[in-house]
């Protein structure tokens, strides 16, 4: 039996097909998000079925998650990304106690109990300054491919202090830093540290380890190091971090059967 998880995120849609018996991923795919979320999700889902030679009737259940979850008409049910990320991470890292998920438009911190259930969560709701969107703005402003940010920030010797709590004003700060001759790598390191500080602040005083870093931003090099530096502790990057929410949704779809 196969079940599907569809994570209709703010920037991308992810689909995972999971074998319910072996709990192994049969197929997975990602596409950019757009206006017609439902059509995009269906198209990606159909494409995945076709590429895997799977019939629609073989898919016993579909759970949708992510901000666009309610727009995915083919889903049997919807579950929030908080629950799905927790389940996905725990599947991949069974002793995980804390999850940091930084996506395109938000970030969240999820605390788990010993059995893997969500104990508590916190999300940023003020600004894009703690999200992937901020990294995109910075990369564009600096004329750097987003995937090279980590390579450059590793060369920083004197990370710039980014004081602003707002992505828009932070961009203004970056313009000022560039004008004053600050090196690109120092600006990037400063921005990554600012994002890490903002996200870890969601935790308050206590963070239980192991901490797993997931979401699309976990694929951006340098962010893991920035988080470790702010936390003063090791961070595990979730395997295939962009797919964790969809994986969790697929697992939950299997559990419901």
């Amino acid at each position, binding site marked *: 039996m196969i079940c599907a998880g569809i994570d209709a995120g703010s920037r991308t849609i992810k689909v995972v097909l999971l074998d319910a018996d072996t709990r192994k991923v049969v197929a997975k795919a990602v596409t950019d998000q757009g206006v017609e979320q439902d059509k995009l999700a269906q198209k990606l889902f159909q494409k995945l079925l076709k590429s895997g030679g799977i019939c629609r009737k073989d898919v016993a259940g579909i759970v949708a998650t992510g901000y666009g979850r309610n727009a995915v008409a083919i889903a049997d049910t919807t579950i929030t990304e908080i629950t799905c990320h927790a389940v996905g991470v725990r599947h991949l890292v069974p002793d995980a106690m804390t999850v940091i998920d930084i996506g395109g438009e938000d970030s969240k911190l999820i605390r788990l109990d010993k059995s893997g259930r969500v104990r508590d969560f916190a999300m940023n709701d003020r600004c894009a300054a703690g999200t992937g969107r901020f990294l995109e703005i910075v990369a564009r402003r600096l004329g750097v491919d987003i995937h090279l940010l980590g390579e450059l920030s590793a060369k920083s010797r004197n990370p710039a202090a980014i004081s602003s709590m707002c992505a828009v004003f932070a961009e203004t700060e970056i313009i000022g830093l560039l004008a004053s001759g600050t090196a690109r790598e120092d600006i990037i390191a400063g921005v990554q540290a600012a994002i890490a500080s903002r996200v870890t602040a969601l935790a*308050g005083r206590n963070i239980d380890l192991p901490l797993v870093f997931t979401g699309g931003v976990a694929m951006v090099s340098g962010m893991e190091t920035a988080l470790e530096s702010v936390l003063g502790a090791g961070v595990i990057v979730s395997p295939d971090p962009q797919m964790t929410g969809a994986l969790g949704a697929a697992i939950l779809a299997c559990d419901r059967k």
Partner: protein
Amino acid sequence: MTEFPRQISLQEWDRRYEQLHEAGLDEPSYGGPISRHIEDGDTRLLKLLYDNSAAVLRLWNFLLTEEDRLHKARAEGRKLVGAMKDLGTIPVMAYSFDNLTAFYPDGAWWIPCLMELNSGLLSVADKLGIDESFCPVRAMLGAFVTGVHFPIPELLICSVGATCDDFSAIAQRLNSLGYAILWWEIPHRRRPEPDEPGVNLPGGFSAPKSQVEFVKSELLRVKTALEELAGERLADEKLSAGIKRANLVRAYLAELRRLVFTAALCPLPALEMLVAEMLAIHFCSDQNEAIMVLKGLLDEATARIKKGTGFLSPDAARIFWVNPVADLQVMNLLEQCGGRICGTEYLFTHALDAILQDIPPTEALAQMALADPMAGSSADRAARICADIRTFGAEALVISRIPGASHCALEGQVIGEIVRDKLDIPVVELEIPPLTDSIRPMLRTRLEALVETVRERRKK
């Protein structure tokens, strides 16, 4: 007339109203269909879901006709008192006089929501330098300047000191515009030192006797001003009688809260409970009618519980809610996400506890005023919240922030951490502006995630 409990839209209420009317509904003078208030510009009403009982019809009509009542009171020669910020103390004193009507100008904070930002009040406040970095209660400033939403009272009284900083700033700005204000000070409540005489306050708090004496002296100053306005001396017996009436309101509310928050099936929705709780602080400008409205709600809730009827699924997540919401629609949203309210702390728990009747009345009011959750530390608030969560059996806590409110920036983390440590239940903070339409998906995600978390935790 009683129908199976349901939440219905305003349009459905029009049909329901006709049914009730045909069945011989006995309405007060301010009765009528709820939809008539749309003519006042309260367009948010079109988007809310309402309980379908006659008791709730009366509640909404009572709430939405307060301005008419104030004008009528003035026309009848009664003097109007604007009680600001203390949330529950001065109106008890004012309603002890025969010819005074007190109201809370602060209540204007819901006008931007009800009128969906079309009231213009916030832009008036903006122009006076009180911009969106302040709490939405700045709408009150606009209401005073425009004079549209309530008549300007003969006497304005405002508590200051250990109160909300924004409110003090807004009231000072009002003062600077020429509106005379009688200020009275509420000190920051502290526990007595070991060698200092102390007083146990309602709500489980304590304070040095010297602080109670100080507040008493402040209240005596207020009492003198009220006596001058009323042209009558307020004897202790009369103030005691006023306290007794206020306690009747509080007793009805206490019982209503107990019934609704602990019932197996929710007998009254969160939105109407929020409105009902507000009656404790301002009586909606008619103390006796407030008692009747609350009695009606209590009768309805009791009848529903007896019949085993109510709203929402029996497995709805039991949520304790801290701070009132600037957008009333969020109360509906919580229920749509699978939650129900089982306990609240809307910043005025001191107005819900009975005022002592076996001590001199001014002393009793001073003790009650000092038990104001805003007058003490966030840790004190958290202790009371933990106690109430246990009482009502809530499974999660929502701390709802009011944008711009200075206390919200400081209290959430303290309350959240104490509740997590003591009770090990999930805590979520949300920021609720006067209109949440554009952030509804985000709010929905958080509330749904909270409900999912609660349900998952039940699986031991």
